[in-house]
């Protein structure tokens, strides 16, 4: 009945050079996903759907603007009400303080003490997944340890090079961890999903200890290490999860959304994914349109052929254009006679009349934000 017993640490730490140019001007957290979402919507929705409204957000100073642009006043996530509290901190602060020999976790510790919540959840930014943090808390409470980690059984292809895989005993207790770069077999592996539920007092103690020894300020890495040390119980997440770390995993994750089971697991679960509200008119399908197997947001005008695509808001597909197997972000224009396949068009891209943009299933072409494509661009 009471409001949540948890506060959250939301770490927007991950950035991958393999995602460029998609993350040139935005944080990985604000990458468009599944038509109308940004990647951060998944972690943030998991947080607020669990009734949590005390959030310590860690982000890079350089990427904070795209984050704030999307979050706005936080209204959609219920974060603009009295009682809600978001504390924004920058990695740069931690880094600089550590370099100066200062106590770099003090702000985080102060946050944890101010919240007075018995439990704290840590969640990262790069997973497209729909975690039920209340269920994980119940699991944590019934196991009695200080820290509970969340894993997902995945093949090697769903591991990024900086991920960790846990080695578990029969009772799903963390015995050891491997770094993904050291793994050679196909798997499956127990991917560390970067979600932890902890006793707050214990976490404060660990943070104090860590900064006294001037250990790394990377909280996620520390928690993975502590999971092994504490023989943490591991909670198996069985829903949809995709680890977004390069162009291909980004493309595949979007294409996954055309599959009913995966879409239902991620978007239509018992927990809604919340995103920023826009006022758009419905999407209009002309008499000449031919749309199949496509997930599409509102405000679009479709007069051409669109197949196997994931389409964001306010995209125009002209008559006699063809768009297949592609991810099209907001406000793009595909002009008449254009032919787009295996492509990722970033926001505001225009494909001029008769122009062909073509990649391959495993190497989709990425067109940078705002580009006007007026010459054919075909991967051989």
């Amino acid at each position, binding site marked *: 009945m009471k409001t949540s017993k948890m506060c959250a640490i939301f770490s927007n730490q991950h950035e991958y050079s393999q995602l460029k140019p998609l993350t040139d001007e935005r944080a990985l957290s604000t990458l468009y996903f*599944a*038509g*109308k979402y940004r990647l951060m919507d998944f972690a943030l929705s998991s947080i607020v759907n669990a009734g949590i409204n005390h959030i310590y957000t860690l982000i890079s100073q350089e990427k904070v603007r795209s984050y704030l642009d999307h979050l706005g006043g936080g*209204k*959609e996530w219920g974060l603009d009400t009295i009682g809600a509290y978001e504390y924004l901190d920058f990695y740069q602060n931690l880094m600089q303080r550590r370099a100066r020999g200062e106590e770099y976790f003090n702000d985080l510790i102060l946050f944890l003490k101010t919240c007075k919540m018995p439990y704290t959840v840590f969640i990262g930014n790069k997973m497209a997944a729909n975690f039920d943090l209340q269920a994980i808390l119940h699991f944590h409470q019934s196991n009695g340890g200080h820290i509970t980690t969340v894993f997902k059984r995945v093949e090697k292809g769903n591991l990024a090079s900086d991920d960790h895989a846990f080695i578990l005993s029969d009772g799903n207790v963390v015995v050891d961890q491997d770094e993904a770069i050291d793994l050679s077999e196909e798997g499956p592996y127990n991917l560390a999903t970067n979600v932890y539920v902890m006793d707050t007092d214990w976490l404060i103690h660990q943070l104090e200890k860590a900064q006294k020894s001037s250990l790394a300020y990377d909280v996620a890495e520390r928690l993975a290490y502590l999971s092994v040390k504490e023989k943490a119980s591991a909670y198996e997440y069985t829903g949809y999860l995709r680890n977004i770390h390069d162009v291909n995993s980004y493309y595949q994750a979007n294409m996954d959304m*055309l599959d009913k089971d995966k*879409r239902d697991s991620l*978007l*239509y679960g018992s927990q*809604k*994914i*919340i*995103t920023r*509200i*826009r*006022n*758009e*008119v*419905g*999407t*209009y*399908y*002309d*008499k000449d*349109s031919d*749309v*199949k*197997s*496509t*997930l*599409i*947001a*509102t*405000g679009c005008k479709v007069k051409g052929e669109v197949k196997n695509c994931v*389409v964001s808001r306010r995209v125009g597909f002209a008559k006699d254009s063809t768009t297949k197997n592609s991810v099209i972000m907001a406000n793009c224009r595909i002009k008449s006679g254009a032919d787009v396949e295996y492509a990722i068009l970033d926001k505001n891209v225009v494909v001029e009349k008769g122009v062909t943009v073509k990649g391959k299933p495993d190497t989709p072409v990425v067109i940078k934000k705002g580009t006007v494509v007026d010459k054919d661009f075909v991967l051989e």
Partner: protein
Amino acid sequence: MSTKMLGLILAGGKGTRLGKLTANQAKPAVPFGGRYRIIDFPLSNCANSGVRNVGVITQYEPLKLNNHIGNGSSWGLDGLNSSATILQPYTDNGGSKWFEGTAHAIYQNIDYIDSQDPEYVLILSGDHIYKMDYADMLEQHEKNHASLTVAVIDVPWDEAPRFGIMNTDSSGRIIEFEEKPAEPKSNHASMGIYIFNWKRLREVLTAGFATADDMVDFGKNVIPYYLKSDERVFSYQFSGYWKDVGTIDSLWQANMEFLDGSDGLDLDDRSWRIYSKNTIDAPQMITEDAEVKNSMIVDGCYIDGKIEHSIISANVDVQKGSEIVDSVIMPGAKIGKNVKIHKAIVGENAIIGSNSVVAEEDGKIAVVGNGEKIGVLPNENK
């Protein structure tokens, strides 16, 4: 804090002529155009015209309407010096206050209006589809030193006998008002949109109800009284799209005109947006087997059937083999397999069981009520 012009939307109507669609909600809450409700139009017009304080007067089944309007945040009416206020019947030391007519509803809410201290009041209906700049109307009202300005639209001469007709002199001053004249002298029809100088209207209403010269209705009582008393009453000529959606026929037609773009409403115009309360739904999914032509579809829909010349509102499910033609499907409706829906309006959260047919003969419009279940087998009912 005083308000220059206070907006007052009359949203109390039961909308009897909309039948099943208003059985459990007020007419202004009826969905329109896939993602709107009718009242979004006057509310958005207010927000876009800079009318920052709006009272919505209602008394019939207000639950859904209240839930839709909330604190007005969807229209940006929750900001500094802005407000949206729902006004319902109440009691005071003088007894109970039901609203017996358009003007009487204003009279019963004098306390609220006084608390806003407006110079002008803008009276609007909650059941018209149109885009209009009330700031321009006010500018003309002030220029004319008018006591009352009535917005008028020219209707085809043969339809004029169905309207309240305003006969004007060359300056636009209204010299005569005829309610549904058999032989109209002009085709300037009142749109039911008024700007009054509040001080004067307050006097007229108060004096009227004090002396049993009851000012119950604007059309029947107040405007004739103003004309008789030689008040400065002017017309404001409007020439865009305007539609009263008070009947099943006109509601269906307005939706089709909206779909075809023949209404000229141009809802893509981002400088005069129509706002609505948006729910957070996933994008729409058009499957491999779907066929969509000439239609408009919004968030949360799952389309696995054939859609032709129709409007599909939020969270509608259309299963395989079904065919929807020339129809309006309202939010949350679930359409089973192999269903045929022709020229119909399907109400909110209706459930149409597999293999059902929804259609009327003789070109009439079929209507399925809100939450109604058609051909649903007991075990299909979720």
